């Protein structure tokens, strides 16, 4: 069965949006409570590689897109997540599931101030020690 169908079947109503581009990029949205289940399905069961996560400051909240790649096939599965509350943006960390997400989440945390629950090592990665606390370079406005 196609990976797309498996995802649609397994996640069912948890998928809140689904979009495919002609260039084989698949974007689908889930609620932030469902990210662990989605990641487990994509990473552990379907064997996709976690490529990276892009976080953006949008007018309606922080948007995190997790990009998963099936090696050997041409698609990119991008899981879209919206954190409406900018003051207390928080989402479950993927690092306990696989360590490859550690640096990516640390970077998002320091650049945008999104907290990752259960992250084992949430500390500064790129910015200097004297960087002012509470100042996030990639936030807009």
């Amino acid at each position: 069965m196609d990976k797309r169908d498996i995802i649609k079947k397994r996640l069912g109503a948890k998928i809140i949006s689904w979009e495919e581009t002609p260039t084989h990029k698949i974007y689908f949205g889930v609620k932030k409570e469902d990210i662990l289940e989605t990641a487990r399905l994509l990473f552990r069961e379907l064997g996709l590689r976690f490529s990276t996560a892009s976080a953006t400051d949008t007018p309606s909240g922080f948007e995190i897109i997790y990009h998963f790649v099936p090696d050997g096939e041409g698609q990119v599965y991008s899981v879209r997540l919206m954190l409406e509350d900018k003051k207390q943006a928080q989402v479950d960390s993927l690092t306990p599931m696989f360590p490859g997400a550690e640096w990516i989440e640390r970077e998002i945390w320091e650049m945008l101030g999104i907290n990752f629950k259960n992250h084992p090592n949430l500390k500064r990665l790129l910015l200097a020690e004297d960087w002012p606390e509470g100042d996030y370079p990639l936030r807009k406005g």
Partner: protein
Amino acid sequence: MSHKIIVPIGPYHPLQEEPEFFQLFVEGERVEDIDIIIGYNHRGIEKLSESKHFDQVAFLVERICGICSSSHPYAYVLAVEDILGGEAKIVPERAIYIRTIVDELQRIHSHLLWLGLAGHFIGYNTVWMWAWKYREPVLDCFEMITGNRNNYGMIKIGGVRRDIKDEDIPVLKKTLDELSPALDMFKGAIMDDPVIKMRLKGVGVLSRQQIIDWCVVGPTARASGVNMDVRRDAGYGVYDRINWSVIIEKDGDVFAKTIVRILEMYESVGIIRQCLDKMPKGDIDADIKDIPPGEGIGRVEAPRGECFHYIKSDGTNRPIRHKIRAPSYMNVASNKVSVIGSTISDATITLAAVDPCYCCTERLAVINRADNKKVMNGWDLIKLSQEKTLKLKEGLENGRPGAG
């Protein structure tokens, strides 16, 4: 009595897009733990990119890394062209061929560079000098077709900036012909040398499962038997129209990583030759004017692995979000598992095996935690690594393999 020693490798580390500062926690000879601190080279390119015009960003991302200076712009333009409908749909055929040629030439020069440095770390300075000697003709080719030895400025949205002239093609082919015997020499020298085998086999092993958990990409992953190559999967360039194969090794040690890189150079030479023969005549630029709103993803197999760019556009002339993930970002993190358990004299080559950089090890220093006094500097550590090779060599000559 056991006393722990911290070995800082760093602090800032120039030769890589992500400079690293490693702290090795050493007990006796064994590396017990490693702490990786990065950020000494962070220039805020993602933020800068949001303040630049779409055409300017290509020049900006070219300066993320000097060694992959065609992979980053290529991944970036692929992301932008993804919004426009894909590379195959809008870019003229000849331009795609030229992009592929530049990208593969860059792979040869990058792998030769790594090979030389790896040789230097284990005390084979001849390998260093020879590899860099054969790298020069490749840079000359770059100078001939792009006008610069590094930072080519070739790739733009919708095509390439310069054409490859007909009279340049024989020169390129001649360079490739002359490169092949050099590659044969390297292959022979490394695959058949008992000392190199003893020095690199079983060192810095990453298992298949570790590769998957740490999301490692590129030659490092392929050396552990993971079948991935973005060139084959992502459908960019002309790789689907050309005969080539993905190089995969099983062992996952430094030796396997070396072999993967050497064999990949042969593939690259083959790809460039076929491209030069098949390249059609025609336009090189589609002359793209506006970028519509939308989001796009571009993936390119850089010499070190998958290079990932994500672009979000709102229809103005600047991206509103540009996410960049360079391959070493994933690979360097995996040092955490590959180094632990090895000896200090093996740490240099293990850290270098993912192709991170040279200068980190140049500024290697052993610090004793008790009085915080430097007892060894960077050269001493490389010397330590080189002495181990020398001892192995002497042991071999005296008929005592494994001595030392």
